């Protein structure tokens, strides 16, 4: 397909895209708001009263869903932020009395405390190398610590019985219903637009494959911490509303049990669906209030059983089931319409000011060592590579080739020596900062975002250079000529709306290569880019790489086992054996070397 063709496909859909979703959202939100406005006139006072609380909880569930369903952070601690907001309010009103200024101050204090706590959690939980389980553990410790602190407050915080009897914002139940209803609708709409935007896809990318995100130059720890802080602030506002509305706070609202209950609501509603958790929470909490009186323990037992069944059998929750059923029914009654694909427009990125002919070597490795305890994997590695060069690293399994790649792409990995990229020392920088210096790394196993589409994967790869839209799908992805060339040559441009997991092995490899090139690197590290590819695909990749080296003046470092491939494309070959460089020379020198035959065949002694 030609260049013009791609653009045409894109531009026809772009207009449709920009107007319609927003109008749709506003329309849907307005209908729900009308419903909220009318509801109190059709319900008894008790139901209205219960629903206000249910909607506050729904806002909490929404924040948990963003963290767990989208970002993949299983949090048990959202209750602590809720309690921060609620207790700040209760304490201010108890000891200062009620006034509108104090009410305003209370929400600010609550948010400040929640954000400070969240900052501490984020500092502990989201650091380079922390596991998902560890992050969950920290969020589990938080409510325990906060509950104990509330207990230790003694009479000041009301200890185990909490605080009550303070004056709050004087509103009728109906007024609270409208206020909370509007807040929830606005919050949900905002969250919906954010999660559907390009930046929202980034959350999913982090959930799917955080390592790849880091090697795309994205500081995932910072992104996670930021989202966590925002969700903490939402929790604090919900707590503020709760304290104002119920006029009671007790340590239970800070607890691990409430934190886990939020997870149950989100899981039942459907994680990662936003509407599921909101609707699910309202239904469950409302039903609990009505049924708990008649069947107190049986109701909770039923919830427990349903929860376990949903986790086991329907990991995505109940909402997807409902919407699938609805789609099926619609399919039966109406003529099936072709899916409206949001075609993405690919275009050339404007050249960033980078000298094409750069003086000095692109990559200097000197005296690099890597030890695991007493085991020495690499020692005394010295070599240089210049722009426009394709250097192949060869050597038998266990020679340390991949380890060397890792040391170049992640400054914290080597045990000794220095590495510089384009004249800059990488020191102990983490991968995302090495990317900034100009390193792009392609992994041995194709490492892409499985549930995202090809187009979205490419957009995420560009996120470092082209900030993503936080409220809509931009529908455009700017790629440098090299990445665009790979996409076109391998036919990926016709798969832009295909989820990456459905691609063939070869296309996945090509996609990852395009993603790495989208970073506009100076040095690219390719770990067995042709492994598992067919002969044709291999030739194609080889041609592309040679072109990249000559036209883009890229420095390409390649790990390969296929010596024919190496011979065809390399300008130089480095032979690694038992962690040392045994030969560094031209292709002919290496191919005719007795030493290489010895190393590979293990004979000749």
């Amino acid at each position, binding site marked *: 397909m030609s260049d013009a063709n791609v653009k045409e496909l894109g531009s026809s859909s772009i207009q449709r895209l920009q107007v319609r979703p927003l109008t749709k959202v506003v329309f849907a939100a307005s209908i729900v708001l009308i419903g909220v406005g009318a509801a109190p006139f059709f319900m008894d006072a008790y139901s209205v009263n219960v629903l206000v609380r249910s909607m506050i909880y729904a806002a909490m569930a929404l924040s948990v869903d963003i963290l767990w369903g989208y970002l993949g952070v*299983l949090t048990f601690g959202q209750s602590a932020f809720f309690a921060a907001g609620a207790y700040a309010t209760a304490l201010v009103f108890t000891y200062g009395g009620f006034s509108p200024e104090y009410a305003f101050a209370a929400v600010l204090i609550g948010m400040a405390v929640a954000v400070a706590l969240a900052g501490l959690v984020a500092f*502990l939980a989201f*650091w380079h*190398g*922390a*596991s*998902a*389980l*560890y992050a*969950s*553990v*920290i969020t*589990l*410790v938080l409510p*325990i*610590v906060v509950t*104990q602190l509330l*207990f*230790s407050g003694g009479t000041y915080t009301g200890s185990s019985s909490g605080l009550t009897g303070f004056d709050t914002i004087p509103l009728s139940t109906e007024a609270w219903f409208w206020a909370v209803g509007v807040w929830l609708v606005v919050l949900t709409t905002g969250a919906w637009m954010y999660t559907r935007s390009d930046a929202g896809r980034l959350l999913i990318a982090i959930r799917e494959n955080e390592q790849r995100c880091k090697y795309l130059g994205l500081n995932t720890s910072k992104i996670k911490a930021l989202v966590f802080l925002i969700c903490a602030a939402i929790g604090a506002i919900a707590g503020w509303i709760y304290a104002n509305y119920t006029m009671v706070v007790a340590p239970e609202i800070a607890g*691990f*049990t409430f934190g*886990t209950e939020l*997870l*149950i609501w989100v*899981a039942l509603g459907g994680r990662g669906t936003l509407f599921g958790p909101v609707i699910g929470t309202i239904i469950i909490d409302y039903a609990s209030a009505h049924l708990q009186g008649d069947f107190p*323990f*049986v109701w*909770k*037992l039923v*919830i*427990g*059983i349903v*929860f*376990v069944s949903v*986790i*086991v059998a329907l*990991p995505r929750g109940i909402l997807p089931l409902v919407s699938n059923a609805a789609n099926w029914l619609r399919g039966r009654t109406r003529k099936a319409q072709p899916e409206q694909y949001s075609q993405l427009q690919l275009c050339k990125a404007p050249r960033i000011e980078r000298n094409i002919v750069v003086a000095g070597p692109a990559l200097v490795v000197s005296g690099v060592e890597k030890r695991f305890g007493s085991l020495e994997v690499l020692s005394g590695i010295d070599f240089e590579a210049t722009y426009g060069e394709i250097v192949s690293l060869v050597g038998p399994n266990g020679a340390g080739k991949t380890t060397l790649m890792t040391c170049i792409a992640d400054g914290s990995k080597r045990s000794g020596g220095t590495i510089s990229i384009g004249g800059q020392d990488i020191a102990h920088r983490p991968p995302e900062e090495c990317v900034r210096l100009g390193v792009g790394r392609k992994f041995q196993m194709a490492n892409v975002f499985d549930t995202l589409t090809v187009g979205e994967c490419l957009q995420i790869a560009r996120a470092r250079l082209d900030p993503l839209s936080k409220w809509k799908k931009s529908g455009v992805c700017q790629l440098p000529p090299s990445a665009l060339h790979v996409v076109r040559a391998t036919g990926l441009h016709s798969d832009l709306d295909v989820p990456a997991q459905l691609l063939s092995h070869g296309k996945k490899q090509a996609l990852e290569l395009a993603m790495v090139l989208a970073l506009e690197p100076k040095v690219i590290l390719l770990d067995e880019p042709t492994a598992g590819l067919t002969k044709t695909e291999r030739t194609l990749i080889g041609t592309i790489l040679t072109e990249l080296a000559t036209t883009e003046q890229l420095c390409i470092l390649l790990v390969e086992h296929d010596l024919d491939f190496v011979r065809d494309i390399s300008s130089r070959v480095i032979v690694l054996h038992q962690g040392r460089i045994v030969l560094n020379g031209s292709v002919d020198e290496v191919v005719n070397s007795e030493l290489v035959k010895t190393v590979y065949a293990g004979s000749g002694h």
Partner: protein
Amino acid sequence: MVPVLLDIITTAAILYIVSSGLLLVFGVMKLINFAHGGLLTIGGYAAVIATALGLNPWIGIPLAAVFGGIVGFGMERVVVRSLYNRPLDAILATWGLSIIIGQAITLVFDRGVHFAEPPIRGVISILGEPYSTYRLVLTALALLLGLGLTAALRGTSLGLSTRAVIMNEDLARGLGINSGLVRSITFTLGSGLAAVAGALITPLSSVDPNMGVAWLISAFMLVLVSGSSLYSLAFASVVLGGAQVIVSNYFGSVLGGMTIAALAAVILRIRPQGFSYE
């Protein structure tokens, strides 16, 4: 000084007893069993039943083992088995099982607090200080449990299979070890141990449907800090249990209640593998 020292030793012993079942399941299955608290509660109620039937209080312990084992076996078959590849979901599902256990117990008994007859009453004089005999008996039991589990893992063929599964499950399966069976037995054993621990701690804590939650958190933290070794669990019990006793003594029991969790979080931040030497 002597009572504090004894408190540290006996607290560590109790924590070891409470955590060993969880550690076994975590070590073999790489799965965090949040139903551990519920199983502990089952054990507590087994002791209550023994008291209600007028049996010798010691009978409550094998009774707890049987109840816990049966429930654990059932849970593994019906729920846990399908979640081996989804560790975070397994935490949630087992927490759900814990809720089911708690509610079922509430339906059979009630929400109130129950008491079980302690197997041993009275105090014994140690260096002139009177000290609870039962806590000292628990320390001896913890030692026996540790030795017994180590011997079982080292000395039996099932133990050998279990260790193989812990180290490298794929390889173990390739060598013809039925890892499904190993998992099933481990989960049953871990559940039985949890219930036994629940019965053993009844003289020290009241029995109610939520008695397991606080213990679950402590046990969970200890296991995370210990990795999958019974030795490092003993070490972690002494260090964290000791810290808890000291903080409770000098800063009050409220802050003592969060010592284990907070300290474990910090330890894991500094050293992600915790006290495990691997």
